[in-house]
């Protein structure tokens, strides 16, 4: 009983911390993108706009919740929740440092894949349930995109699985050793490249933000959403970014290992690396135009998947010869 209570408290703490990070990830993004675009970003609420995310949260919480008359109400309500829950659940298996993990399961990597594929249901349902043409097109795009890029992403991580011989995220980090040179980014540079692109597509970020391409589909699948429900989609997107960044860190950048150990706060390096990834996300958003739908598919199926497959074969050959 005690164990369950402790677990419950742990879950709550993780939830609170992640939500805070999500809120400030939006601030982080707006500030960085602002400075990249010769403007200031949020400045008004608090010192240099520091309280802006909180104000935004309160605002969207109290906004009117509009449900279109012709919508499928149940699915419309469920969609953002599915997104958020799927993304939050995948946090459970992420090791933030040795032992700092809610559920240290053997199939951590697969579990995260499973959850991220579930999150796409939220988007699809949102697109369908709104009963609007723009959202529907957004949902369709998202469906095709998620199916295609999940394959590329899964295949890109197979190399890591082969090198480490496990699907447990903690063990993957440990298999890379503590030294800088042990990181899988060096032997798996091809896989890392594929992963980075697929990661952007999985999280619907520029240049693959087609499901919500605002100049084409107004706002894609979330066109009809407002207030808190819209904010939930937003949160899910940012948690998704963080989860993807965490996987990239764990599988390729040596997880929580750093040049030296930080006492009392072992996850320091992991979080730092996650934010480097986040910066990468934002930087790309500020730089690149958007792909077109068919070009996105072409890139996924004709470039990334073959590349990932080649990487698997290469890794297999090298592993067979070295062992």
């Amino acid at each position: 009983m005690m164990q369950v209570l402790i677990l419950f408290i742990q879950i709550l703490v993780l939830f609170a911390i992640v939500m805070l990070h999500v809120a400030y990830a939006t601030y982080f993004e707006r500030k960085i993108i602002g400075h990249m675009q010769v403007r200031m970003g949020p400045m008004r609420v608090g010192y240099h706009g520091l309280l802006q995310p909180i104000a935004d949260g309160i605002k969207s919480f109290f906004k009117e919740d509009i449900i279109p008359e012709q919508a499928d109400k149940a699915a419309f309500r469920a969609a953002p929740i599915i997104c958020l829950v799927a993304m939050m659940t995948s946090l459970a298996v992420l090791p933030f440092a040795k032992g700092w993990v809610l559920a240290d399961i053997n199939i951590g990597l697969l579990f995260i894949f499973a959850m991220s594929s579930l999150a796409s249901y939220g988007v699809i349902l949102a697109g369908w349930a709104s009963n609007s043409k723009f959202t529907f097109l957004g949902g369709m795009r998202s469906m095709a995109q998620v199916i295609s890029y999940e394959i590329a992403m899964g295949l890109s991580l197979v190399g890591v699985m082969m090198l480490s011989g496990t699907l447990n995220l903690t063990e993957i980090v440990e298999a890379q050793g503590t030294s800088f040179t042990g990181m899988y980014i060096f032997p798996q540079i091809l896989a890392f490249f594929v992963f980075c692109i697929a990661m952007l597509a999985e999280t619907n970020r520029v240049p693959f933000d087609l499901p919500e391409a605002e100049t084409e589909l107004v706002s894609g699948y979330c066109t009809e959403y407002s207030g808190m429900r819209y904010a939930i989609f937003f949160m899910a997107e940012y948690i998704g970014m963080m989860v993807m960044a965490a996987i990239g860190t764990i599988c390729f950048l040596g997880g929580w290992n750093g040049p030296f150990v930080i006492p009392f706060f072992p996850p320091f390096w992991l979080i730092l690396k996650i934010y480097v990834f986040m910066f990468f996300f934002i930087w790309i958003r500020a730089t690149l135009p958007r792909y077109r739908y068919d070009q996105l598919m072409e890139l996924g199926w004709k470039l990334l998947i073959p590349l990932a497959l080649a990487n698997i074969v290469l890794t297999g050959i090298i592993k067979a010869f070295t062992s």
Partner: protein
Amino acid sequence: MTRPVTKTLEIPVADGERNPYSLKMGPQHPATHGVLRVDLELDGETILKCTPHVGYLHRGFDKIAENRTYAQTLILTDRLDYIGAMANNVGYCVAVEQLLGFSVPERAKYIRTMVCEMSRICSHLLWLATHALDIGAMTVFLYCFREREILLDLFEELCGARLTFSYPRIGGVRQDVTRKFIDELQRVIHLFPGRIEEYETLIDTNRIWLKRTVGIGKLSGDKALALGLTGPCLRGSGVDYDIRKHRPYDAYDQMDFEVPLGSDGDIYARYRCRMEELRQSLRILQQCVDMLPPGPVLDKDAPDLVMPLHKNTKGGEADSTSYGTGIIKFMEEQGIYPAGDIYVSTEAPKGELGFYFISDGSARAYRMHIRSPSFIHISALPTIAQGELIADLIANIGSLDVVIGECDR
């Protein structure tokens, strides 16, 4: 015995080829540049048929112009292409001067050429900004606005307005340029080439940008001409038609500049054309500054085209109509207004901006027709967009550079 097996929510889907998926884009849509509505018939995301609808901003300028004096109509032209309003003002004034046979002092000609090119840069910058945003490149948008701001400040220094200028007058310009304006302009001319390179670094060699623009929205030169496209859209298809060269007005015959031509007629070619035009405009600006002759800026013989006042400044009740008509009567008696018709067009940033006037000898135009480039460019949209994807339609609308205020008039 039968019974319904499914009873569903209406799912908006394409029902084979009998009933294509129809999508109404606009009039409120982020990428239709104002209140343009485009009705699409889609097969998946491929456009089977595209029907633009305009008129949401129709204000009846043609009709208003028939009931106002020539000077009064000038302020309407600000509201055509409000992104580069100065070019419309100049276009209108050039047309009226030719109709009424006024001459313009040399200095005014140079100033007008100058402001024309400035508004061309303004317009092209805004075009680049929104076009890039349509394709998804967000940063270029803000960079362009940073530079546009400098130019708007310059305009403010020149005439006090930032958007609707009404600065040129029939027979010249309203007031002379200041020393400060010239100095600032000089600075801008030196600053801009670097900034243009900055945009090009961001998008010109970008793989995604090239994928989105090269080979999309192709038009051959003949087809573009038949569709009535003008300006950079026509020159992108390789047709050498620039009114500044073909029928020079103001001081353009004194200027040494090149007309950039594309060859492919796709979105990328139009983009390249406009980028080169930015550079050529800077060249013209430099020449204007260097060659600016001294002298008056408003023709002495030009009639004092005072606008009728709404309130009599000397106190008492307003009698605007009789005051206005008084002047007009006087001028009609002087025989300033010849009877006849004339079509004069100028090279506005978006393309050929033409004014067709019929004068019957009174102070008001008997008939005025504005040939606005945006109107014709939108009408070419179905031809360009057919068979392409939704995303390309957005890019095409952007690359045609339409302003609804000008289209609907």
